[in-house]
Structures are given as structure tokens and as C-alpha cells.
């Protein structure tokens, strides 16, 4: 190896490092960041915080100006009232049933369709896939006029089928699961074939377990959309509480509890707390499902 050569280079300009090296204001930047984050957190949480606070105050206190920011003597009665007078138990039950049906339906139809698109060859495959994708272009809101009359003529007004059947299939879910299935190496499928696995066995024992993250993501997404539906339950459920979901129930609640704002808010808190808990538990799946289109 040659020893260090004599350098052959043009006379260099005064090196910028002649500038004295600055100490890092690391502490300061960290404090600044935490401050910004805290401000953001306050902005985001503030409405929910006030809802909880107000739900624990007596109606007369709520009307107080300036508004109280902390309940000194929390009145838990509003929650009991919301639960019983507001029929929240029934509404929550209905929402749970509706959501379960929709989530199960979407998972099943998406898995089946995605399996066909990912592993099977058949005529018009591409055309049919385009058909599935086109459903993404037709927002549900554009179909409500006819769907309402279809559901009525089927006698499904104010029933669970009426509430859930239009949503049992999803182009988005099929697309998501197809992607996941396509990730499974071809070799695995071929090895399974050699081992004598039929399609259903392969689907159940191999494809579905391997696609579990995508399934979880879809499940969370479906759950959220179904639980938070407003327009369709409004159109399709009647004034009796047999099928009415919690979102419409909330509207009902505030209409009947005009002065009892604490009760309305208590109902709202009851309606949102289960979802917040689910968020904490399923945060990862949620993020994955919401961003499945964003990250190329």
C-alpha cells in the first residue's frame, strides 16, 4: 500500500469549520417539543374532557359562567339516568349486534373473494376485479335513495337485516386481503397442493393464519365504520328501540333530555368509552388499516 500521497488539490477555501462549533441546545429543543405536543394534546382532548366534566355536574352548574373546568362534587346520577332513561343498554346491544353482523359479513365475503382473486385462475378475472374496485368509486351515500325502497319492499325496514345486509361486502376489504394473500409465496401453495391440501383446507390452515395482520386491520376498520354509521341507521330504523343503534340513540337522548345536558353528555361518554378502550388495545391494527393505501 502506498504511503500517504502528497496531496494534489487546489488551494482550498477557508474551511467552514473555522466557525466555532456551537453547543447543541438539546435541552431547549426537547422542552419546546414537549410543549408543542402538550398543546396539541390539550386541543385534541379538550372537547372530550369538557364532556366528561359537564356530565358530572348538575344542570344548574353547567350553565354557570365562567364554565367550571373541574367537577368538585361529581354527580354520578347522570350516568345512571342516561343508562336507564336513555335506553342506552338497548342501543348499545343493538349496535353490538349490528356491528358484529357487518364485521363478520365483511370478513367472510372479503376473504372468499380475495382468495379467488389471489389463488384461482378463471375467465373474466380481471374484469371482475375491476368491478370490485369500482365499488370504491360509488360512495354509499349515492345509493341511499334506491336502497331505502329496496329494503322496505323486502320488509326489512326496522330490522337487523335491513340495517346490515347492504354492507356485508366491501371492495376495500377484498383489495386489502388480496394484497395480503399475494404476499404468501407461491411455493407454499404448491407444496400444499403436493401434500394434498384442497382449497378450503389451504384457506383455513395456511392462507388465513398468514394473513392475520391484514384480517385484524380489516376487522378494526369494519368495526369502526359499522359502529359509527349514522345516515343509514337513521333512515332504516324506526322510533321503537328494537333495532336502533347507539348513534341514533344519542340523537334521541339529547332530544328528550333537553335541559339535562349532563345526562346527554353522560350518554355520549358511555358511547365512546368502549371505542377508546379498543383503540388502546388495537392501535397497531387500526393504523395499518387506515394507511393501507398511503404507503406505496
Amino acid at each position, binding site marked *: 500500500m502506498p504511503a500517504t500521497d502528497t496531496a494534489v*488539490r487546489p488551494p482550498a477555501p477557508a474551511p467552514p469549520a473555522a466557525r466555532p462549533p456551537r453547543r447543541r441546545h438539546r435541552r431547549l429543543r426537547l422542552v419546546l417539543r414537549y410543549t408543542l405536543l402538550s398543546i396539541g394534546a390539550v386541543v385534541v382532548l379538550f372537547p372530550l374532557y369538557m364532556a366528561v366534566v359537564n356530565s358530572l355536574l348538575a344542570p344548574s352548574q353547567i350553565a354557570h359562567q365562567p364554565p367550571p373546568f373541574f367537577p368538585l362534587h361529581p354527580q354520578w346520577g347522570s350516568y345512571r339516568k342516561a343508562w336507564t332513561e336513555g335506553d342506552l343498554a338497548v342501543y348499545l346491544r343493538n349496535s353490538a349486534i349490528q356491528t358484529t353482523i357487518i364485521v363478520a359479513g365483511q370478513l367472510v365475503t372479503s376473504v372468499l373473494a380475495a382468495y379467488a382473486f389471489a389463488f384461482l385462475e378463471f375467465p373474466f378475472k380481471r374484469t371482475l376485479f375491476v368491478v370490485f374496485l369500482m365499488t370504491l368509486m360509488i360512495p354509499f351515500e349515492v345509493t341511499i335513495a334506491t336502497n331505502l325502497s329496496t329494503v322496505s319492499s323486502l320488509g326489512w325496514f326496522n330490522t337487523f337485516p335491513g340495517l346490515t345486509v347492504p354492507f356485508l361486502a366491501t371492495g376495500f376489504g377484498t383489495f386489502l386481503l388480496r394484497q395480503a394473500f399475494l404476499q404468501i409465496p407461491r411455493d407454499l401453495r404448491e407444496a400444499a397442493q403436493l401434500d394434498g391440501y384442497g382449497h378450503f383446507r389451504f384457506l383455513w390452515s395456511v392462507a388465513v393464519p398468514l394473513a392475520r395482520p391484514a384480517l385484524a386491520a380489516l376487522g378494526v376498520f369494519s368495526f369502526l365504520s359499522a359502529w359509527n354509521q349514522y345516515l343509514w341507521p337513521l333512515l332504516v330504523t324506526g322510533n321503537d328501540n328494537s333495532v336502533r343503534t347507539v348513534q341514533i340513540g344519542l340523537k334521541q337522548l339529547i332530544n328528550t333530555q333537553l335541559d339535562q345536558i349532563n345526562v346527554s353528555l353522560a350518554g355520549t361518554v358511555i358511547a365512546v368509552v368502549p371505542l377508546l378502550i379498543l383503540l388502546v388495545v388495537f392501535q397497531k391494527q387500526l393504523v395499518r388499516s387506515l394507511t393501507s393505501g398511503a404507503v406505496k
Partner: protein
Amino acid sequence: MARVNFEGVSKAFDGVLAVDDLHLDVHDGELLVLLGPSGCGKTTALRMVAGLEDPTAGTVSIGDVVVNDVEPKDRDVAMVFQSYALYPHMTLRRNIEFPLRQQRVPAPERARRVEEAAGTLGLLDLLDRKPGQLSGGQRQRVALARAIVRDPQVFLMDEPLSNLDATLRIQTRADIVSLQRRLGTTTIYVTHDQVEAMTMGHRIAVMRDGRLQQVAAPQDLYERPANTFVASFLGSPGMNLVPASAERGAIIIEGTRIGLPDGTPTVAGPVTVGVRPEAATLAPEGIPASVLLVEQLGAETHVICVLADGSRVVVRQEHRAVRPDLGESVAIRVDPLQLHLFDTDTGARLELGR
């Protein structure tokens, strides 16, 4: 141009020591290679010079100034990343020019320096293209151009050749070497490829599990490895290491006594002996072994033998030599002047005494 010093530098991630008490001086103007297997800490050490990681202990100095608290952009170092790290949304010209804009270099001067750097690397025709339109080798050169245009005190290179195919790698290797010799800028070069290290570096610093094993010129490293790790890491195929026992004036391998003419082992008992494949030959008499495999590589042949105790010895033969058959019993003769002795437990080199 400047020296770079590591004084007692350690870096821990979540309680795991990536770099352990590193003391290393990089001479002004030299190309020092940080060599080692994945996870040995070489990249972490490099990033601490750049300022992308902070040492948990110790100080890093550039040009005799301690830079632990200095921002990366104020350290006057340029880095070539393994993935080139080009700005995909900018043309080559703007990519190369980017660091100069940050330093507020005036436009005419900027243009001149960009053209100069691009010219050195043969990129003048491509200046208006974007990285996405270039080949891997071309992107590599853009990354280099962006580094040299800053005329920094130190170049840092993190395995810049590993994403290139074999032929391109060899050519670019030569280009980088001649560039560095011409510019004379102090360069720290990280790689796991010992061929790159041997051909490019003025000196090589071998690292393992965060600790520095040995730093020396390539030939010194090859001829006087400080421990079994360095001995087996350099050279292809690596040095043969077999158990033996040492006694006065000789070592004994598999019952065969080999006299040592230029010294005597200072301790008696079990040792590890290292002998490079080229220092071993098949002879009528020597250490008994049987042939496991014969690898013919054209210009040379590697005969992989197994000793009675199960150790493997690779013997290098010229292509004209008579090749043995598989399973044949042979005898291996080693050149007593090219033996290395290592401690059986620590692997450290044992010097011979008088």
C-alpha cells in the same frame, strides 16, 4: 484535512454495548478501513464521527477539536451512505449543490464547484437528470460527488460498494482509491469485505462485538495478526487454526514434531497454531490427514483435509500440482517460518522468545 480521534468511546443501545471503549487514531490524509462482521460496531463508530449518534462515553475529536456536542452540519464531514441517500425529487445538479446552498456559497462559486465535482466523477452529462433515472453505479458517483463538493475535513463512507454488482464494485473500488489519494482527504471507510479493506486502506482497524481487535497496515495485519479472529477474518480462504502443543523449540501437531528455527514458544502446553493455506503443502512426510474435498479454482486448487482430531486444514496448491483423490491419506508439511501461535483460551497472539 484532519485527524480523527476516538478516546475511550462507547455506545450503548438499550443496555447493549455496540461500541466498547474504542481508542483509535485516524491519521491525517489516510484512508482507514473499519473492518468487521455485521454488528461489530463499525457503522456505529462511523456515525458517531458524523454526529448521527452520540457516544455514551468517551470523546470523538476531529482536527484535535472535541466534537461530541457539535452539530453534524458544523463538523465539516461528508458521508456517503450505503443506499446513497440521494434526494429523489431533485436533479443531480441540485443534489450535488445542496450542501453548498446550506453553507450560503454564492451562486457562481457553487456552479463552478458542482461542475468540478461532477467532472471528476464523469457526471457532467447527467446533471439535469433525477436519481430515479440513473443506474446504481451512477447514483453511487453522485453520492461521491456530493461528498467531495463540500471539500470537507473528513470523508465517511458506509459500505458504499455493497449495493453494486461484482464487476462494478471492482471498478468503483479503484475509482474511490485514486480519488482519495488524489484529494488526500482523511477518510474512514466501513466495510465487511476484507478484499476491499486490503486493497483500499492505508491501515485497517478490525472490530468485533464493539471492540477494536487490531489496527495496522494491511500487510502487517495479514502477516502478524493479533488474535485468531483477525487471523481467520483476513485472507481467503482464512488461516487454518489447529490445536497443537508447544514445547521447547518446537510445536507438535497430531504427533508430528515441527521444529521452530527462529524462536521458541515461551510457554509449554496446548496452543492454537495458525498456518495459511499457502504455507502448507502436501508432502511425502508430515502431519497425517485425509482428503475431504478438492476445490479446483482454475489458477489454484484448495485441498480440504481433515486431521485425526477432526480439525480441517486447507492446503493451497498450484494448478499444476498433482491433485489427490477424495479420501486419500496424505501428509501435510507446513513452513515452520510461517506459523502463528495463539493462546488456546483467549486467541491472543503468542510471540516467540529466544
